């Protein structure tokens, strides 16, 4: 059979025009430059005696000295730590309990709960907070109703515990997802064995399930703590009025509201916050071990026996349902109601105050611009960010590029970085990059870039688990067949990665649409986005149109996620796990 020998002359595969190494290096430099780059001007700005936009100036540690001598700053740290600590405790206990109930017991409606519990993290964070304020805030609809009509005390949400409660309800899904994934991985036969050995269900929980969850608990606690420290929306909207300052709101107000704005000191504060966030991220990596973070949900087939809850089956389900109602459903409904009435007050029945004015306002001026701008940057940003992360993930995990090992850490880094700091970093960067910088500063694309960088980790954590499941032998087979690195990626890996790419795109779109804090330092009249407009208009008191805007944001988010529903699960679980 000479057949296989030479019936047709077979040329050797050609070398690609661009060597793979050059492409890999370009992507590496771009990713690292975008993520780490903006902090360099910030560091520079924090160590000068005057702002970068003023001529002259010398290097000095004066801004740090000034910052550290400000009692307000340390007060803000004390508040922040208290806030983040309380948030972490509530979110982790809540998330872990729901995860155990949903994946290990015979709770009623557990499937539905498993999905609905994720809602707070998918909905726009700012919108949700505004919803809380409208309903439960000082002078809020239900708060008034309960106290004036029913003479029931409600929780004052403008206190540190109150604000923590809102933050915890936003971050509870993070703990839920981490624990749920850990439980799905863990062999439930461990629990079955304990039961066979005579342990009662509650004993099994205490002695087997919860100890098994310890790494997941530590991991999510660190992440939640970091995210709470970084949080700006709640501190700004609820704390400022009561003069409770947090590090993030302190820095923001120092920058915007002070009679004598001092960018150098703010940058110094931002550097300090960045260092804290980085240390927390390193701590978390320590806790996790390098790769364990990503152990894919290797579906352990076989339905495990559920721990029977007996008499608690219904009461627990009702508790979760009530929690979801109060923390998510009611705030969203409150926003919707708020957007169609003149004022929302328990004294007058809402239907007597109906109006479409707020909605009409959305079609003009700043509100209209904000919606258009947000949609534009979400679409373009999601495409660009997804493309970049896709290639970067391939370089990180499917290439021999010498510096590839740094990429996963760098790609996850912005997740732990307060959006505020990213905003400050980009502000200084644009200021120092002449023509390009000033064009970016003057257009919505500058904001888009900051939002993209901030949200890159989401695309990565969606992409990586899928890539890890695509056996490396598949691309090796491509290489052996004569295809170069990029040809193999295009022909083999990318087509197989398509569902994850799509999920990453959906998630990026939603995250960019809902993001706001990096833009606070970059926004200018004309390039507003939904988040910044909501914040500034709310502070100025136009609550009705802001509610309408929030409803628009929630609706777009739900519609887009619904469109991606086929891949909903992967988008969500991957998305917030890391």
């Amino acid at each position, binding site marked *: *059979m000479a*057949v*296989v*020998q*030479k*019936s*047709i002359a*077979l*040329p*050797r*595969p*050609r*070398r690609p025009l661009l060597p793979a190494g050059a492409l890999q290096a370009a992507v590496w430099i771009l990713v690292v430059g975008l993520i780490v780059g903006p902090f360099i001007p910030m560091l520079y700005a924090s160590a000068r005696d005057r702002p970068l936009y003023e001529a002259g100036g010398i290097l000095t540690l004066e801004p740090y000295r000034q910052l550290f001598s400000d009692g307000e700053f340390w007060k803000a740290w004390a508040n922040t730590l208290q806030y983040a600590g309380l948030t972490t405790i509530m979110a982790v206990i809540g998330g872990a309990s729901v995860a155990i109930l949903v994946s290990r017991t015979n709770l009623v409606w557990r499937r539905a709960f498993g999905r609905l519990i994720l809602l707070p993290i998918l909905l726009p964070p700012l919108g949700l907070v505004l919803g809380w304020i409208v309903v439960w805030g000082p002078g809020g609809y239900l708060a008034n109703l309960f106290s004036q009509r029913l003479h029931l005390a409600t929780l004052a949400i403008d206190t540190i515990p109150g604000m923590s409660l809102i933050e915890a309800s936003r971050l509870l899904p993070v703990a839920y997802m981490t624990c749920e994934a850990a439980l799905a991985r863990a062999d439930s036969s461990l629990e079955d064995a304990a039961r066979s050995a005579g342990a009662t269900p509650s004993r099994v929980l205490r002695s087997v399930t919860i100890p098994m969850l310890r790494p997941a608990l530590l991991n999510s606690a660190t992440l939640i703590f970091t995210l709470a420290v970084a949080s700006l929306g709640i501190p700004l909207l609820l704390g400022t009025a009561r003069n409770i300052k947090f590090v993030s709101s302190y820095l923001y107000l120092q920058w915007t509201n002070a009679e004598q704005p001092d960018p150098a000191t703010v940058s110094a504060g931002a550097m300090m916050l960045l260092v804290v966030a980085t240390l927390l991220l390193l701590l978390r990596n320590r806790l996790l071990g390098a790769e364990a973070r990503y152990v894919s949900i290797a579906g352990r087939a076989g339905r495990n026996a559920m721990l029977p809850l007996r008499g608690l089956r219904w009461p627990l389900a009702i508790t979760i349902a009530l929690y979801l109602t109060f923390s998510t459903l009611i705030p969203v409904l409150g926003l919707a109601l708020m957007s169609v009435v003149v004022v929302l007050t328990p004294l007058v029945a809402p239907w007597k105050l109906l109006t479409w004015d707020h909605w009409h306002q959305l079609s003009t001026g700043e509100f209209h611009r904000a919606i258009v701008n947000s949609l534009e940057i979400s679409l373009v940003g999601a495409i660009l960010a997804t493309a970049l992360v896709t290639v970067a993930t391939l370089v990180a995990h499917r290439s021999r590029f010498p510096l590839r090992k740094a990429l996963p850490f760098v790609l996850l880094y912005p997740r732990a970085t307060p959006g505020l700091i990213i905003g400050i970093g980009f502000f200084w960067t644009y200021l120092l990059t002449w023509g390009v910088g000033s064009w970016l500063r003057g257009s919505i694309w500058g904001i888009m870039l900051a939002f993209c960088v901030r949200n890159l980790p989401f695309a990565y954590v969606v992409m990586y688990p899928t890539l890890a499941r695509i*056996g490396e*032998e*598949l691309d*090796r*087979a*491509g*290489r*052996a*067949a*004569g*295809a*170069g690195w990029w*040809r*193999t990626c295009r*022909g*083999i890996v990318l*087509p*197989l990665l398509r569902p994850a790419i799509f999920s990453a795109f959906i998630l990026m779109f939603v995250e960019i649409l809902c993001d706001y804090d990096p833009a606070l330092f970059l926004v200018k009249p004309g390039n507003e986005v939904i988040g910044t407009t909501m914040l500034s208009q709310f502070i100025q008191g136009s609550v009705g149109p802001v509610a309408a805007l929030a409803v628009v944001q929630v609706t777009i988010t739900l519609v887009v996620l619904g469109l991606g529903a086929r891949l909903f699960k992967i988008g969500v679980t991957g998305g917030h796990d890391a």
Partner: protein
Amino acid sequence: MPEIDVAQLVKTFGDQRALDDVSFTVADGELFTLLGPSGCGKSTTLMSIAGFQTPNEGRIAVGGEAIFDASSRLNLAAERRNLGIVFQSYAVWPHMTVFDNLAFPLKVRKLSRKDLGTRVREVLELVDLAPYEKRYPHQLSGGQQQRVALGRALVYSPSVLLLDEPFSNLDAKLRERARTWVKDLQHTLGLTTIFVTHDQDEALSMSDRVLVMDGGVVQQIGTPEEVYRRPANRFVAEFVGQVNLITGTVAGHEDRNAIVDAGEAARGLRVRVDQAPQPRSSLTVAVRPEALIVEAAGDASHNTSNTLLARVTSVAFLGDHYQYELDASGLALTAQSPHQVGSTDVKVHIPPDACAVVA
């Protein structure tokens, strides 16, 4: 068809030496097998040849042309080595039809559409997959997927073929068939092939030559007969098939045989040796169970030397033979025989030529 020359490969993962000075040469058209337990470094060796692992030291040449040389930092990219490879998982691309799987290497080589079709069909014919060209991998059985992988590795006329445990995912029946089929194909094509397996039956039945490996170190290279009958050391003896190990002291020497005293039971045992051992030194001898001749104690034949009296402690019927566990005054032996021996008291003859000194 070129020969493959692998010289002094060393590969470390951290402190672990996965390959420790591995050298061998595969002759043109030969089917050469790397045999060893899981984790011994077979895949690492194969992947070093294919260009997916970079050894720390050593040199690899195909057809006289170096493709890897640690000393001159030469490391030809995998895609430029023109080797055919079949992975353990087959690595058939799930998003492509059978046809497209085979067409990909040709597209990379920018073959014209017409030539490409002709060539792919030719190879599909060769691997008995012509009727399945439009199917997707998930619509194929394991055996068929494996043939897709093989076809894909052959379609671009690679200079050598590398097979990494290609049969380990097939069930026992299919595996036997696939072995013969691959062996025949390799033979007809005259393709220089390196085959990796941890299954000694597979290695012995298919190979022209076998390399036995353990802990990253080459233990023995030889024909299947040599490796089986004259294992170079204890590891090879035990890994390749069942074996009886008899340890004793050298009492003397006569012709080409050493005389070994192995306890009470086997005094004056004659054992074939290549060179005379040190008198009074300790010696371990390997004998295959089927080389032992077992007879009822009363039989007259084999009443010569090297015959021990033993008691049968258990018998198992294994279809084509019986397996006896024997106790020869304290020396435990395993023997195989096609015949049933009627009594529990037996004579065991150990042919001197069937003995290999392994330590």
